[in-house]
C-alpha cells in the first residue's frame, strides 16, 4: 500500500548564476512499512529531500502526499501537527533539547500535543532503547550513542507513519552504529513503520529494502533489494 508519494519535487537555492538545483524534478513513491535507504555523494540533495519529506522545508515546486494527503497544502499550524504526529525526524547530531531530561525529550511530541503520556508505551520504549537508568539524566550526561537512542525514541514516541533518519550513525562508532540500526529496523519490523534513512555507509544501505541513489538533485538509480 502506498504511503508516501512524491511528485516532481524541485528545490532551488540562490538566483541567476548562483542558482543551485538541490532537487530537480524528483518523483517516487514509498510503500507502507518499507525500509528505504537514500544514498549519494555530498551535495546530491539527500538531506534536502529528507527535510522536505519531514515538513521542515518547503519545495519550490512539486507535491508530497502522505496517506493521500497533500502535505504542503496545509497551513503552518497543521504542518506543525503533521510533524508532531505523522513523521519522526532523527538527525546526525541528535539535536536534543539540552535543558530537558531524557523523559521530557522522549515525550516532547506527546506533550506538545497536550495529551497525557501513555506510561506503558513510554516504559516499553525506554526498555527497548536501553535507557532504563537514564530517565532523569540531561543530554550532556549521556554518551553519543545514548543521545542518539533518545533521539530515536522521540521520533517513535507518537508512532508516526514514517521515520526519517539523516545519517543517524554518522557520529557514532561501529558498535553504536550497529545498535542504532538494529533499533531502527526493530521499529520498522515490529511497528510496521516506514523507514527512510540517508546514509553514506554501504553496509547500512544494504540492510534496506530499497536503495534510492541521488546525484545532482536527481534520482539516478532506484534499486529494490528485497
Amino acid at each position, binding site marked *: 500500500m502506498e504511503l508516501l508519494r512524491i511528485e516532481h519535487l524541485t528545490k532551488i537555492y540562490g538566483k541567476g548564476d548562483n542558482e543551485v538545483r538541490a532537487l530537480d524534478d524528483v518523483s517516487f513513491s514509498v510503500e507502507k512499512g518499507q525500509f528505504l535507504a537514500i544514498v549519494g555523494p555530498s551535495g546530491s540533495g539527500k538531506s534536502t529531500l529528507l527535510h522536505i519529506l519531514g515538513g521542515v522545508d518547503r519545495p519550490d515546486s512539486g507535491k508530497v502526499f502522505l496517506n493521500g494527503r497533500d502535505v504542503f497544502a496545509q497551513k503552518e499550524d497543521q504542518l506543525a501537527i503533521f510533524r508532531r504526529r505523522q513523521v519522526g*525526524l532523527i538527525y546526525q547530531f541528535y539535536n536534543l533539547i539540552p535543558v530537558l531530561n531524557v523523559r521530557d525529550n522522549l515525550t516532547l511530541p506527546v506533550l506538545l500535543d497536550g495529551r497525557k503520556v501513555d506510561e506503558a508505551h513510554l516504559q516499553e520504549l525506554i526498555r527497548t532503547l536501553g535507557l532504563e537508568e537514564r530517565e532523569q539524566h540531561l543530554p550532556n550526561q549521556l554518551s553519543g550513542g545514548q543521545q542518539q537512542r533518545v533521539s530515536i525514541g522521540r521520533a517513535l514516541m507518537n508512532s508516526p507513519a514514517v521515520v526519517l533518519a539523516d545519517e543517524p550513525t554518522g557520529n557514532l562508532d561501529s558498535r553504536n552504529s550497529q545498535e542504532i540500526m538494529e533499533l531502527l529496523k526493530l521499529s520498522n519490523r515490529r511497528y510496521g513503520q516506514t523507514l527512510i534513512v540517508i546514509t553514506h555507509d554501504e553496509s547500512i544501505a544494504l540492510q534496506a529494502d530499497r536503495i534510492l541513489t541521488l546525484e545532482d538533485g536527481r534520482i539516478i538509480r532506484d534499486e529494490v533489494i528485497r
Partner: protein
Amino acid sequence: MKILSRFTLKSMRQNPIRSLLTVLGVILSAAMFTAVVTMALSFWTLLVESHISTEGDYFISCDYLTQEEVSSLSRNRQIRKMGEYQALGYLPLQEDGEGPLSTLLLAGGDRNYFDMLPIKLTEGRLPQNNRELLLSEVLLPELEAYGYPTSLGGSISLPLLRQWDSYPTVQDLGAVAPSFLGEYTVVGYMDADTNLGNGMDMYPMLTLAEGEMPPVLWSRAYVKCAPKAVWDLIQGAEFHNIEVKEAYLALYGQSKYQNFTTILLLLTAVLCLIIVVGSVSLIYNSFSISMGERTKQFGLLCCVGATKKQLRSAVYAEALFLALPGIPLGTACGYLGIRVTLWLLRHRLSLIIGDGMGDVTLRAVFSPAVVCIGALLALLTLLLSAALPAKRATSISPLEAIRQNRDYRLPKKIKAPRPSPFGFPATLAKSYYRISRGKYRSTLISLIVSLLLFLSAAGFTTGLRSTADQAINTQSYDFECPIPYSQTQELREKDFIGASAYVTTEYVFTHVQDEARSEEFLKYRDDIKEAYEPAVDPVADIQVFYLEDKILEDYLLSKNLDPKEYLNPKDPKALVCYKELITYAMADELGIYRRYTYHYPPFSQSLDSLTLWYYYCPSGLDPFATDEPWTYGYESGAKGELILSLIPLVENDLGYIEEAPRKQWMQYELRQEQTGGSSNPVAFHLIDPLTGEAEAEPSCVEEMNLRRISLGETVKDLPYGISQSAKDSPYYIGLILPLSVAPKGYEDLGTLCLSAADYDKASEYMKTEYKDMDYIDYRQEEEAARAMILVVDIFSYGFIVLICLICIANIVNTLSTNVALRRRDFGMLRSIGMTQKDLNLMLMYECFSYGGKALLWGIPIGLFLNAQIQNIAADSGTLAYIFPLEAMIAAVISVLLIVFTTIFYAASKLRKDNPIESIRQECL
C-alpha cells in the same frame, strides 16, 4: 507544569546571570514606575491639602442667598457637602459720629462650615452652640477699644442691627425688630491669617448656626461636589453671586483655564516614557540574546511539532516568570524608597514648603490603585519587550534554526575590510563590529540613552542651581525688620542677637553728563544698549542709605577715612558704592544667553558733588485737557538738559494700560534759577513737539526739594547693614550718608538689620513676637534655596542613577554575551597562533568602537538637550548658560569604564580555556 513552561524555566536556570540581570531590570523598572506615580500622587495630595489648609475645602461659594435658595441648593443631588454661613447682624463701631467707622459682622456657621473653611485657632476652641462666639484676633483691639470685652470665657453683649447702611439684607424679614442684642460667651480666637473671604467677611464674629437662631439676613453656601459636576451645577443655578475656586478645580483638571492635572500627568508620562525606553531596551535585549542563543532549540521544537503559538507562549512564559519575583519586589521597593527618601528629607522639605502653603507636609501617599498602575506599567513594559523576540522566534524556519545560518546577516555587498593601521587584531575587531552592528544596536542605544539622561539631569540641576543661587544670602546680616528706630533697643539687647545696624533709605535721582561718569560705566551702558535699547536716556537713579552714625563711624575708621568729613551734619560727604553686577541679558550669535560681569565706579574721579532731585511733578502744570490717567518721568535731553515728560496712559488692544506714543507726551525743560539763597526754584519750560525747542517763558516756576551732596570715596566693601543691592542692582547707584542727616521723619521709616548669635533662638523669637511684622529672614530663604537644590539633586540624580543602572545592566548583559558567544572563535584564533596580547588589542578596539560611537552620538545631542533644559530650568532663559564640563568628563569616563570593564571581565573568563575545548563546544 506544561512542557514549554518547564523548558523556559530550565533555560532560564541555565543562564543565571542573565536571568538575574533581567530580573534586576524588571525590579528597577517596576520600582521606578511606582516611585514616579507615587511621587506624582504625593505632590498632588500636597497641593490639595495645602489648598484646603489655606483656602478651604469647597469648589463653589454662592453669596447673598435667601433661606429658600439655601434650602433648594441643599436638595441638589449633585452636592456632596454644603456649609452654610449666615449673616445675622451688623455692629457698626463709631464713636459719637466721629473717628473712623468700621462695621463688624456677626455670623453663624453650621458644622459643615467649620469643617470646610480653614479656621485656625490661636486660643480656646470652636463654638459648640449658638450662644458661643469665636473672634478673629484682628478684631480684639478694636472691640476692646469700643468697650466690648473679649477675654476668653467672658460674656460679650453685642447691639446688632439688621439693616445698616448699604450692607445687604436679602431675606424678607417681615415685621421683625430692626435691632437686637446678641449675648454670647467668647470661647476662642481665630488666627489673623485665616482666609474667610473679602471685606468684613474676612474677620467675622462667628457662632454656631444650630438650634434657634436670629433671623438670617443673607446666607452664603459653600459647596463641594464632584469636580466634574461643578460647571453643570453653575449652569443650572438660578441665582447669581457665584464664585468658583478655579485654583482648586485646576487640581482636579476641571478648571476652564490652566489645569494643573494636565501638567502633572504630562510630566509623569514623560518620566514614565523615559523609564519605558530604558527598561524595554534592557529587557528586550535580554530576551533577544536569550532567543538568539536558543534559536536551534526553537527550531528543534518546531521540527518536533510545536506550533508558532506554542513557541510564542514559551517566550511570554519567560516574561511572566521574570515578572513574578520582579514586579512585586520592584513595586514594594519603589514605594518604600520614596517613603524613606521623603522621611529623610522631611526637614529640608519643610524649609522649601515654608509657611505659605499652610500646615502641610510632603509625604508618600499610599494608594492601591497607584501601586497597581506602577505594577501594570512594569508588566506592559515586560510584555512589550518580549513581543518582538517572540515574533522573531516564530518567524525562523525550522531548518534555518537547526542550521543557525541566520546568525550573521551579511550585507548584500560584502566588502573586504580595509586593513587597520593598528594591525590585524584591529582589522578583525572592525569586521566583528560591522557584522554584529545590528545585533548590538540596543547596546549602543542603551549607552546613548544613559549619556543623554545624565547630561539632561546635569542641565536641569545646573539651571535650578543658578536660579536658587540668586536666593543665596549675600547680605551681611540675617534679619531685616521694619521697625521705628526708637523701638530697636529691646531687640538689640537680646542675647541671641549679635551685630545690628539701623538703616533708612530714600530714592532720588541725579542728572549728570557723560563726562561725570566713569569710562567703565559708559562701556557697560553701550554694551547693554544692544540688549535693552532704552527708549529714552534715563537719569541716574540713586538709592541713598542713611546708616546709623556709630556704625558708619566704625566703618570709616576701619577704612582710614576721616569721620568728621562724612558725619558733618551741615555738609556730609557721601560714600559711593562701587558697582559689581552680573547681567544675563545679552545673547550671543547662537542665541545663548551668557553671563557678563561688570565692575565700575558709577562716577568719574573728577566729580565731587551731586544734586539730588526727588521724583515730583509740580501741581502747577496742567497736563491734559481730559481726565484720562497719566504718569510722568524724567529724562536727559539731547543737549544734556533735564526734561520732565508727562505721559498719558492708554488702553491697548489687549486691554492693558500702557504709555501712549511719544508724540502724545508733553515735555518740559527744567532750568534751575540762581537765587544765591537756600531756595531752589526750578522753571518748567514747555517744549514744542515740532521744533524741539523750549518756550522762552516758563509754564511754571516751582520751589523744588533739591539737595547738593559732596561725594567722598567709592567703596567696594560695604558697611554692615547696607544691602548688597547697593553694589549689584543695575537700577540704582548707592550712596551712604549718616542717619543723622536723613530727612525729618525718615528715621522711623527704616529697617533694623540683625545678625543672629543664636539663629534658632532668634528665628523662634521673631516668629512669635514679630509674626505680624513683615520681616525678612534671609538665612531661612538661603536654607530653603539650598534645601531645594539638595532635594532636586537627590531626586533627579537618583532617577538618573536608577535609569543608568538599567542601562548598565543591559550593556553588561549584551557585551558579556557577545564575548561568550565567540568562545569558539577565540579558541580557533588562539589555536592558529594569536597571542593573548593580540586578543586584548582586538577587544580594546571593540570597546572603542562601542564606546566611541556612543560618545559621538551621545555627547552632541546631550549637550544640546543640556542647553535647552538649562534654559528652561534657569528662570525662563534669563540666566547664563554654564557649560557642563564636569558632567561631560564624568559621562565620557563612565561610558569607557563600563564598556572596558565588561568586555575584559568577560574575556578573562575565557582566558583559562583550552583552545580545543572551546572549538568543540556545542553551542546549544
